[in-house]
């Protein structure tokens, strides 16, 4: 592992050395086009078949032909949603949530301009959905429900398997963006009502530039990219064979590591969280701590701003991410924090630590030691902070003229 402590695995992960090794021959001797009949292509074709089965096993899919390789999670999301709309032109409504990843959210906002009606399910302060509201929205005008399995910022899990059953009973297609969940949450698609599922290689120690769309056999489908017969004509374009082989290996390793992720990685996350909460005042965990990914912890530090925290952490070689507006270049603090009604002064100071199986408890202890002085240093600069704590009624004591 590179120098420094990497706790930003929900952004992307290190490619495992075993996976790099597995994919290297496909840049050199195994260069053939898997569609070719000759021996050069045939070997690559067989390697893709194996990768497809490895992904199938991880997802618990019934058939390997239900696995479509794509270029990334975003492509899988776009393909799924647009396919459902094109296959059912008479249905003009979509149900999704306010806390989706931009891959789904931005697409849905764009579709509104094209005349589609999008229902955005809201969340409570813990980031949980109102299931009654969801059930009330199900109708034969809805083409597709798209709900994220695990939130990338807080790790909060949504009951997508249950939601898929209800969608099915109402005759509506169900898609889930499972980019963060795959490899950390046991998935058994043959026992579920989920029609489509997106995953991304680089979130599970495969390289960037490869993803998967799971498409249940029989689910109506319209390709996003038409052209050659690759992926049974459902995703044209010559296969990214090296990365697909890598993703296959990554799927195999993720399945082997599932228990480790849910015990050791979870223990490291819990230690990090309790260590920081014990040492720093005026901070809290966002999302639903009782129902979330084992590797993710999102802490809001009140009265200071996230980018400043990240810059000081980075100086010590510690990598994390923030929901502050400044780190994204957008106007607002993270839409996920806003959706949970986290006050501005805390939302801007939210920091996400996301672990992987390559972290160690020793690293976690170093981070626990590093965080409190950084928070104290920035609070000393903050107009909301007094000598030893927040000024009395901080929001009243400092109420700037906003421009």
């Amino acid at each position: 592992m590179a120098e420094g402590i990497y706790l930003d695995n929900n952004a992307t992960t290190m490619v495992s050395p075993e996976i790099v090794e597995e994919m290297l021959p496909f840049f050199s001797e195994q260069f053939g086009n898997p569609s070719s009949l000759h021996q050069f292509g045939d070997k690559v074709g067989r390697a893709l078949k194996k990768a497809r089965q490895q992904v199938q096993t991880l997802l618990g899919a019934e058939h390997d032909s239900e696995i479509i390789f794509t270029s990334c999670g975003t492509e899988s999301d776009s393909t799924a949603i647009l396919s459902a709309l094109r296959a059912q032109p008479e249905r003009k409504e979509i149900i999704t949530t306010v806390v989706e990843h931009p891959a789904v959210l931005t697409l849905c906002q764009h579709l509104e301009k094209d005349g589609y009606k999008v229902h955005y399910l809201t969340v409570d302060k813990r980031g949980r959905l109102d299931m009654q509201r969801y059930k009330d929205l199900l109708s034969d005008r809805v083409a597709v429900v798209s709900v994220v399995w695990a939130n990338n910022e807080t790790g909060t899990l949504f009951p997508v398997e249950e939601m898929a059953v209800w969608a099915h009973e109402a005759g509506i297609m169900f898609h889930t963006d499972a980019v963060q969940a795959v490899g950390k949450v046991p998935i058994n698609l043959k026992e579920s009502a989920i029609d489509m599922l997106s995953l991304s290689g680089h979130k599970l120690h495969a390289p960037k530039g490869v993803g998967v769309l799971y498409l249940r056999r029989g689910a109506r489908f319209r390709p996003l990219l038409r052209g050659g017969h690759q992926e049974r004509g459902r995703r044209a374009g010559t296969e990214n064979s090296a990365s697909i082989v890598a993703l296959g290996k990554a799927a195999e390793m993720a399945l082997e590591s599932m228990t480790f992720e849910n015990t050791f990685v979870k223990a490291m996350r819990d230690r990090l969280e309790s260590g920081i909460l014990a040492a720093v005042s005026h901070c809290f965990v966002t999302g639903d701590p009782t129902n979330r990914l084992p590797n993710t912890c999102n802490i809001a530090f009140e009265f200071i701003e996230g980018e400043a925290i990240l810059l000081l952490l980075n100086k010590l070689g510690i990598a994390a991410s923030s929901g502050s507006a400044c780190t994204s270049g957008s106007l607002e603090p993270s839409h996920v924090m806003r959706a949970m009604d986290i006050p501005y002064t805390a939302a801007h100071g939210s920091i996400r630590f996301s672990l992987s199986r390559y972290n160690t408890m020793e690293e976690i202890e170093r981070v626990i030691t590093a965080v409190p002085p950084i928070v104290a240093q920035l609070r000393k600069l903050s107009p909301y902070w007094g000598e030893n704590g927040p000024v009395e009624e901080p929001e009243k004591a400092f109420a700037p003229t906003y421009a």
Partner: protein
Amino acid sequence: MWDYSEKVKEHFFSPRNAGAVEGANAVGDVGSLSCGDALRLTLRVDPQNETILDAGFQTFGCGSAIASSSALTEIIKGMTLDAALKVTNQDIADYLDGLPPEKMHCSVMGREALQAAVANYRGEEWKDDHEEGELICKCFAIDAVMIEETVRANGLRTVEDVTNYTKAGGGCAACHEGIEDILVKVLAEQGEVFDPTTPSVTAQPKKLNTLQRIRRIEEILDSIRPNLQRDHGDVELVDVDGKNIYVNMVGACSGCQMAATTLGGIQQALVEGLNEFVRVLPAEQLKSCAEG
């Protein structure tokens, strides 16, 4: 990670004048909606001659907000209030060797805090006169509110109009969809429909011929030259090939580790000065192209 200058980083990691000034007699509290940043500036002003004896800041904000606050206090200490009021946000950005376009509002916040503090000292009420919106054009740092207001005030109809009035969209052109969206919205308010084939209401900006363009490039380079010469370096123009401008870094600039950053700065100045997107490349690349 943001492209922060060394000076920004330095002022962030070791801010000057942090904390409230003892015995302050002027306070300015302002915030910027677009980042959720907020700043309290406290000043101790000599009532005899209105000189700023001491300045301190307390900032809730990102790296560049803290650095801008620190820079502001350094700039204004020792100035009279009237002189301090002439400090622009660009002065603050320049003091820090520039800020990324998304972060320019941090310097605006600094200037506003100063205005608010002076108003507070003089017993006046300070009102903010500008509003910030979503950043649309990243090449020239133009936000949505600015574009909307300009479109409304001048009856603009095309992306080209917007570029001619605000510069927005005049660089890399990636924001043209965003500008069209604003046009669609504003025209719809007036009961009209955006039509991309409408002739531009603004006169075409006179296109420079090759000679004029090269002269303009040299003028811009001349304006940067004093900065480079201060560090015992210099730049010379070697060739212009369409969007590619080839230069030689000479003197101390030649082989300097910061050469790439300097080239970036020169490129920014040329993009703004020429009002078009250009690439500044070291002249060695010209040779390798010729050989290749």
